[in-house]
């Protein structure tokens, strides 16, 4: 029994390094970001839009050429 306990302990020590290396997530704070969003146009140029349209109600501020 003690042999098994020792092996389990050794295994836990070896694998614990992965756990210590993990990052944690910041808290769930704040609402949706209200920054303009850059998008590609079909020709590859970039347009800047305010998104989501319905949320901010500002629509395109610089459209595709």
């Amino acid at each position: 029994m003690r042999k098994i306990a020792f092996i389990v302990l050794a295994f836990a020590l070896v694998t614990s390094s992965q756990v210590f290396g993990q990052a944690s997530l910041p808290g769930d704070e704040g609402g949706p970001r209200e920054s303009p969003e850059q998008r590609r146009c079909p020709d590859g140029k970039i347009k800047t839009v305010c998104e989501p349209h319905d949320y901010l109600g500002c629509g395109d501020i610089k459209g595709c050429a």
Partner: protein
Amino acid sequence: MNKLNFNIWEEFNSSQIRLLLLSLLLLISCEVKDLERRRNEVINIEIDLDSFKEGKLSDLYDSIYYVLLKPDSINFLADPYKVKFYKNLIYIRDAFHNSIFAYDQKGNFQYRINSTGKGPNEFFTMDDFSINRDTIWIKDGVLKKEVAFSLTGQFLLEKANVFKRAMFYKGNNFNLYYLNNDPEFDFRILRKTAHEVNPYILRPEYLINNIFSDPVGFQSNKDMEVYFNLPNDYSVLKFDSLGFLDTQYVFDFGIKNFKFEDRFKLGEGIDHFDYSEENGLVESITSFLVLDKNYIIYIRRNDQNKEYILFNQEFSQSYKGKNLVNDLDFTPLNEMPWSSTGKEVVYLMNTSKFMSMSNLNEIKNKPGLKSNLNHFLNENSSNLTEENFILAFAKVKSKFNN
């Protein structure tokens, strides 16, 4: 109480100890090997744009096939963005409607997954969508949730999702996120499972709050490895099938690099554009697509040069050319490569631009066109005069698939 005096040397004989130590050594070495495999290797690839010669579409493609995305009476695309192909259907995220439109391979409308509201089993906005194991996942950064639908558009389930607007990829038991340089995070990419979080690519200060929505986003190949063209950068990231960062391919354009610090100092105004145009600088990799046996990169520079580079699976350049002339059917197919089916590079264009081609009547009667242009024009004459959208499928030359 005596039993608590645990001495391993008394409990195990010498051969057992040797066996135990050997097992531990094996376990440690396996883990080291595993970590090595996830070593975040950086590979630099030098590209000399000055050595590129003018080329033709036939250098890359065998033929072109046009498909009109046909509207029905109430379902019409307004701002088609991400285009994905899955099990014989075409899925398109419409950024204006916050909806997914599904079409068959001939462009016939099948169904639509709509943004209906902020209540249970609904989504309000769509940052991105991902299809995994016959399930369509929609991420809503406003309502902080992800909503799942079947391939026939039926609601399946919803889950909380803490992330704000992000591009995302739904893998088997993991998610990948591009976090849009959210200041709450020090990193640009996250891999997340139910039990762990792995951050990748440190976010530079000058990118804070820079939000970029790429029409391609995360892509996977047949081996379920995942690729991502990092916005505002010259890097393509490769993740293994478990979602761990495997390789960062960094493209170096030499004197055509636009130093990141410089571009953000110049802002987004005319100074930025002029500086970039005058010096023929590369802003970023405009499009990176994963094909079955190749990768394709398209670069659109502000000085109007447009370069194509085809890489084989070892990331060696198998073709490079600039300003490709369409010698397959002579339409001005000069849009950016928008999506991929694996065998074809897919372009998106609207009908008004397509029909405004001055030479359309002249070229449609030319013999030997390597496309379905004539049939396409005859079959869709009524819909082509209205504001609709076309997908052009350019088939990659078979010599590149060997």
